[in-house]
């Protein structure tokens, strides 16, 4: 144990940036806003890098993992329940932090160019820093409650940034949708946390793992319930079936936000949470198979929707959902390190694709419809080249990053017996679709002839190009570390499932199949969108029902509208609104008010404003009092005895 790492500074610095730009940013010159906004994530990234370098033996030794820091001020301390502000840095959170702060910093740089002309420049960066604050808190949290704070906080930041252009109604609605759908997942997380407290008496991840390790025979039962509750939370945050519906709408936010929050980091929090609590899932085979099923189903489901979307960002959004499904699939076959591996490479290439899409949108003056693009490779050569890298990476071509991580997940699934073979096949099918819709995007946007005149053509500033190029380099090389070494590094934190080099050449054969499938996807896309551009329309016309089903996203929004939203609205409007609120509460208030009004209307006649009438009443009252006391005495003197009631 040597110099302290000061983990608490990692969330704090972005928070300071948030406060600074949020409170004073409007009145400050732009360069100052930019400096503060960029310094915060850069400093956080530096701290993480410093910790990582020390760990790998470069520079001074920084102690060993897991490294814990607890705030000396207690937070919740009731009886046996102790919850502290504790930050834990282990292999898992280190990888995650590198991704969050590293990619986060790149996207901050990109945003400087992308948001340069926006009126809410300072507001945008304060939200972005706020997001980093909560995200790093989430990642570093040593117990479930602190993680929950980060969890809710990134949801808030996501809401604020989706609705960043709140003057646009659709953006405001999308923000609300994201927040509400996430609340459903958060409910699961909360219940899971309560069950953890009831059954383990602690929320600290380390203690839960210790207690479970002491009882290796404890499986299923309440652990399954806890794991499934946590899965509900993860499904909400990571846009899995059945709670994925908010993510496509979240594309209303600025594109760098889509890249950072809705592709690279926040939406992967669910995967991170499952990996963080993996000991629970390890003790519940049922929960694990549910995770795998949800992941595989989501991967395929979202990929099929992605086939026909025409909005460039929505294609990428469905692709993100699909890739998150892959990560869940990896978690579900207990290959947490493979899931985190894919999380990392996905963060690189999906952030790259989003940023490239952003620079396309920027260049063609806000157009997002793929069908109106085309031929952009000439205008945007660098973006075109980088997008090509991203497409190759996500499609899983050797030697790009996506190949290694996707391959690791599929390989792990294949080894899981018969059910694993099914999962593997679904994953393979998804890989085919992924390759197809990504090359479809590539052909539609960049190749062919321009399908519409884009009047305004902005050059892409260097602040946007540099992050794209760096991310492209990472998308190429991010997988070269190899799953074996990556899994060995993560093993102390994310489960001991080892990836040993396979002697039976099974892994090699499987990866050949995966790449072959990706080639088929490319070939089909080439056939449909380059060689015979009229074919897609004919195809859609040939199976109108199927095309409409996909184009309308399986009508899931509509189904939710009828089964969930409408009944809730009806209950709120009629039972709660009309009956409880208007009839009981409103009626009661109206009755009380009515009595007072009525009495006032009667008594009002007394207040004539005429002094002499007041004086007359005063005199009459005095006379009445006088009589009240003197009449009994007078009558008494005449021999008549009377008593006023009560006297």
């Amino acid at each position, binding site marked *: 144990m040597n110099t302290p790492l000061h983990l608490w500074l990692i969330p704090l610095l972005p928070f300071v940036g948030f406060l600074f730009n949020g409170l004073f940013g409007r009145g400050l010159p732009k360069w100052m806003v930019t400096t503060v906004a960029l310094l915060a994530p850069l400093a956080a990234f530096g701290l993480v890098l410093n910790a990582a370098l020390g760990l790998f033996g470069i520079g001074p030794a920084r102690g060993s993992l897991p490294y814990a820091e607890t705030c000396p001020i207690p937070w919740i301390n009731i009886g046996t329940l102790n919850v502290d502000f504790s930050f834990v840095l282990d292999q898992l959170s280190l990888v995650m932090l590198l991704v969050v702060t590293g990619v986060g910093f790149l996207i901050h740089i990109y945003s400087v160019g992308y948001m340069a002309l926006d009126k809410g420049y300072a507001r945008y960066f304060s939200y972005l820093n706020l997001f980093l604050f909560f995200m790093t808190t989430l990642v570093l949290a040593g117990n479930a409650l602190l993680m929950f704070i980060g969890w809710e906080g990134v949801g808030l930041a996501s809401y604020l940034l989706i609705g960043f252009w709140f003057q646009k109604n659709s953006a405001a609605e999308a923000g609300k949708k994201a927040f509400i759908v996430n609340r459903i997942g958060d409910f699961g997380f909360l219940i899971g946390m309560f069950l953890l407290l009831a059954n383990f008496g602690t929320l600290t991840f380390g203690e839960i793992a210790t207690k479970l390790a002491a009882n290796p025979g404890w499986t299923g039962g309440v652990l399954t319930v806890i794991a499934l509750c946590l899965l509900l939370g993860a499904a909400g945050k990571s846009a899995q079936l059945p709670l994925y519906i908010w993510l496509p709408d979240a594309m209303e936010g600025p594109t760098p936000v889509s890249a950072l929050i809705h592709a690279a980091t926040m939406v992967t929090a669910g995967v991170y949470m499952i990996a963080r609590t993996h000991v629970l899932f390890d003790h519940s085979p049922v929960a694990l198979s549910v995770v795998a099923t949800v992941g595989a189903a989501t991967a395929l489901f979202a990929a099929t929707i992605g086939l026909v979307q025409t909005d460039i960002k929505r294609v990428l959004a469905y692709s993100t959902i699909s890739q998150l499904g892959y990560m869940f699939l990896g978690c579900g076959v207990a290959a947490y390190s493979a899931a985190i591996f894919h999380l990392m490479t996905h963060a690189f290439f999906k952030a790259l694709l989003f940023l490239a899409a952003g620079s396309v949108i920027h260049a063609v003056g806000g157009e997002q419809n793929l069908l109106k693009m085309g031929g952009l490779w000439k205008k945007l050569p660098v973006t075109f080249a980088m997008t090509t890298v991203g497409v190759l990476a996500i499609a899983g071509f050797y030697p790009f990053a996506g190949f290694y991580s996707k391959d690791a997940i599929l390989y792990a699934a294949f080894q899981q017996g018969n059910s694993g073979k099914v999962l593997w096949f679904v994953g393979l099918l998804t890989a085919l679709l992924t390759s197809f819709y990504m090359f479809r995007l590539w052909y539609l946007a960049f190749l062919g002839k321009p399908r519409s005149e884009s009047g305004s053509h902005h050059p892409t500033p260097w602040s946007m190009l540099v992050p794209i190029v760096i991310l492209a380099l990472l998308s190429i090389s991010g997988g070269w570390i190899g799953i074996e070494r990556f899994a060995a590094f993560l093993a102390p934190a994310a489960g001991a499932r080892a990836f040993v080099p396979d002697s039976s050449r099974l892994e090699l054969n499987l990866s050949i199949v995966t790449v072959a499938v990706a080639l088929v996807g490319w070939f089909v896309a080439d056939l449909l969108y380059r060689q015979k551009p009229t074919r897609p329309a004919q195809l859609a016309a040939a199976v109108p029902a199927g095309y409409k089903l996909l184009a309308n996203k399986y009508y899931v929004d509509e189904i939710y509208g009828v089964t969930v939203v409408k009944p809730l609205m009806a209950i709120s409007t009629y039972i709660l609104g009309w009956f409880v609120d208007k009839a009981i509460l409103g009626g009661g208030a109206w009755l009380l008010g009515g009595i007072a009004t009525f009495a006032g209307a009667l008594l*009002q006649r007394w*207040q*004539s*404003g*005429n*002094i*002499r009438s007041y*004086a*007359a009443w005063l*005199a009459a009252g005095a006379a009445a009092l006088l009589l009240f006391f003197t009449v009994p005495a007078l009558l008494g003197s005449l021999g008549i005895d009377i008593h006023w009631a009560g006297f």
Partner: protein
Amino acid sequence: MSSFFPQEVPLSWYLLLSAALFSLGVLGFLIKRNLITVFMSIELMLNAVNLSFVTFAHQWHAVKGQIFVFFVMMVAAAEAAVGLAIIIAVFRARATLAVDRIDLMKL
């Protein structure tokens, strides 16, 4: 002469006088239209009360009643100052002193 008039004026005479003055004050307050007359009626009522205070103080050999009279006189003096000031202000504003027409508080 001394047989018709008692040596000492009996208590009831004072009280009757006081009651008569007070009633006159009340009547004046109720029926007069001029604000100054109304104001003087109030003074009349106060002094009627003062008279009965003094009477009782003399009767019971208690000094409290006389002290009260001083209090009342003080209050009456202050009231006269404030009241007359208000009356002047009202007259300036409304050009009338008819009580019936000073009814801005009417709903």
